């Protein structure tokens, strides 16, 4: 029997509050953290709303040198990793550091730092031959996204396998899955896994403006701008943040008396090989990923108590995803509560997958389904139970989290409540 992976610690830096507790309070309270962009002047942009983190690196405990060295995405990751390690109670200086791994996801890496420095070196884009004499000491650390995993590895005293996973908007789910892989294959006893992105900068906002993926300005209603599954939805709201988790082999976690939030029971990913940004309406490849994840978990549709949807709030995504749930879960899809927390914290690209896994683990702990905020106008093509507006107390043993990203990537992960008697245990 291969080792099993459990989540024993959670750290989060999310819009609406820094820290796991603040994050869960926001989700359970159904509050939204989307607002007019303050991090840069978005006056000339098509979309001017985002879900920003009120993040003070000094208050978050970073030193002067760490703040100078790390771009915002790295700062998020390190702060979330510290919280996760503390939450788990594990001593990362004990044991063999070669058995500690790191798996961090990010879609766009240190893009904020890279862009800020570009502006200086090119004199606001005037010079193609940028002036190297203005380069800051850690500039190469911004150019290579692997820096994000390296920073977390230093925090965690990790000398085992360390990876930065960058599969666009499924990076966060895929990074947690990669961490689970390292436990299951026996390479690690402990993995620090999660994802971070801080894409709120002009170039990223302009990217999504150009393809009309983000919502155009909602007059005076920034708080209600992210509307997954709603008939009025017209694009996603960009977000930022990080979630990092401590993943351990189940037996070792139990032996040290660790709290266990959840076991990762199943995972699979597929690609649509269709279009870099477009989705077919039938949800075929996402359905395939969900089906394989269920098989690996030895569960079936009726065992799933909650679906944490990708639910980005674009016209095509929410339709695609609804079709995928019906295709993979059949009639049960209508009975399972589904929600999109992007309605509250926006879409933080690669980070969101890990924030969603963390939300699922917390939902299992509290036996509460976070809602889909801002959902009031039904869309006939989205006809499942999306838990509108208000969180719901709900008994659940197994939950499904899915992601869908640019490049055509589709990922599905199943988490089980500890002691829930997963299909794998029975088998």
């Amino acid at each position, binding site marked *: *029997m291969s080792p099993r992976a459990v989540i024993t610690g959670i750290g989060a830096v999310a819009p609406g509050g820094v820290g796991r507790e603040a994050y869960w309070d926001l989700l359970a309270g159904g509050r939204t953290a989307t607002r007019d962009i303050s991090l840069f002047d978005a006056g000339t942009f098509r979309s001017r709303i985002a879900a920003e983190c009120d993040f003070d690196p000094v208050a978050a405990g970073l030193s002067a040198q760490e703040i100078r060295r790390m771009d915002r995405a790295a700062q998020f990751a390190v702060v979330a990793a510290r919280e996760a390690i503390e939450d788990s109670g594990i001593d990362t200086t004990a044991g063999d550091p070669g058995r500690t791994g790191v798996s961090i996801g990010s*879609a766009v890496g240190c893009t904020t730092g890279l862009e800020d420095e*570009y502006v200086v070196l090119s004199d606001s884009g005037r010079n193609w031959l940028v002036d*190297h004499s203005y380069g800051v000491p850690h500039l190469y650390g911004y150019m290579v996204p692997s820096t994000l995993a390296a920073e977390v590895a230093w925090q965690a005293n990790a000398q085992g396998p360390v*990876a930065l996973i*960058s599969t666009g908007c499924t990076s966060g789910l895929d990074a947690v899955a990669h961490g689970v892989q390292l436990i299951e294959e026996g390479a690690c006893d402990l993995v620090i896994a999660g994802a971070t992105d801080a894409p709120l900068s002009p170039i990223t906002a302009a990217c999504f403006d150009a393809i009309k993926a983000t919502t155009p300005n909602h007059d005076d209603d920034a708080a209600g701008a992210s509307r997954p599954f709603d008939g009025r939805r017209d694009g996603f709201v960009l977000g930022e943040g990080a979630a990092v988790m401590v993943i351990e082999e189940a037996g070792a976690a139990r032996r040290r008396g660790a709290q266990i939030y959840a076991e990762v029971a199943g995972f699979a990913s*597929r690609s649509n090989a269709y279009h870099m940004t477009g989705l077919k309406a039938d949800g075929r490849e996402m359905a395939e990923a969900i089906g394989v994840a269920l098989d690996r978990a030895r569960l079936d549709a009726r065992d799933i108590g909650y679906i944490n949807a990708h639910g980005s709030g674009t016209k095509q995504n929410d339709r695609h995803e609804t079709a995928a749930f019906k295709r993979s879960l059949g009639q049960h899809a209508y009975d399972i509560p589904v929600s999109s927390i992007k309605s509250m914290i926006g879409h933080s690209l690669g980070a969101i997958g890990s924030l969603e896994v963390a939300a699922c683990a917390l939902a299992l702990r509290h036996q509460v389904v976070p809602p889909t905020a801002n959902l009031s106008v039904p869309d006939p093509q989205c006809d499942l139970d999306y838990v509108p507006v208000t969180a719901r107390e709900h008994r659940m043993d197994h939950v499904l989290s899915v992601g869908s990203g640019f*490049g055509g990537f589709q990922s599905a992960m199943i988490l089980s409540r500890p002691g829930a008697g997963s299909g794998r245990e029975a088998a």
Partner: protein
Amino acid sequence: MSALGIPEGRRRPSVVTGLGVIAPTAIGARRHFEAVLAGKSGLARITRFDPTSYPVKVAGEVPGFEADQHIPDILVSRTDRFTHLALAAAEMALADAQADPATLPEYEMAVVTASSSGGTEFGQREMEQLYQRGPAWVGAFQSIAWFYAATTGQVSIRHGMRGPCGVICAEQAGGLDALGQSRRLLDTGSRLVLSGGTDASLCPYGLTAQLPTGHLSTEDDPTRAYLPFDEAARGYVPGEGGAILVVESEDGARERGVGHYGRILGYAAGFDPAPGSRRPPVLAAVIRRALADAGLSADAVDVVFADAAALPDADRAEATALNEVFGAGRVPVTAPKTLTGRLYAGGAALDVATALLSLAADVIPHTAGPVEAGHLGIDLVVERPRHTPLRTAVVLARGHGGFTSALVLGAGDRTDHLT
């Protein structure tokens, strides 16, 4: 079965059945290997932009690569050069493996590439538009060209590969990690994986971003610029290109009736202690773990393709690890990357291609350049290729910040490329 679908028992053997090489030495695996054995360098003064104002003027550029001769125009305009190179290399690899994706099960084919820095040149052009003209001038394809997943996504779409795709970023070590991940996928339901990596950040911002590391060689003479393990070593030369490989389960290759260049026998990865730590680098431990994974002892290794950073401390650390694991001066060591420069995500993938070709030809390519490594106590193959029977090679890669990976390769049964 595990949550990730890992079966009980032994791994399924993984073999490499196709090579697609696009490197400063040449376009095409066979021509690349000829250039390597001839010691023909791809290093020269940078031509992609005027390097006069920069302290680094030498790089490894891919000669004569015209993207539109290899891939459809629509993809040329929508993707960065690092993706152009990968799309072209992927086609070459599939053709070399005689693999037609249309005839294989869609969910059992996957793409896993390494990227070190994404579409840097494309990104610089779009940021220039943004800051000179405004957000409305940023093109629609920036969102899909700049990010690190651009190559995997485009290759998956182009060849209808709908399996579990991936992207790993670990700077220079990423190419080995992508191959390690491919092997995992072959254990969990995939039968063919396109893997490897490319990079192409030879634009002004891409070069400038590397300067603060102090790791790039400022020597203007291409023949003296990249001298790993030499007492005159003072940094490496940046390059572009890489390799894409077709990796298959041995059963899958046999079923298709194709030979292979070699087996991936073992893999391991680790990460160095934080800067300032007194603990040693992890390289020796990682090599040992890779050998254990392969079920081989150090004595079984016939050649090591080194990381060869050409930084005095890094070279010494690498030589120390080699001597510790294999015995002082016991194993021949080489670094053909002196002909290409460091290719980041493409570098280790290219080293794997070169190592497989070496195993098949029973010849160790030399480390070109006036390199003298006697003071480090390693048996560096210099001056000319060394003909000797080869069964097993180890490829090493170390990425910026501490990423460390090792791959163990065994000789294959394919010889048609040697004629």
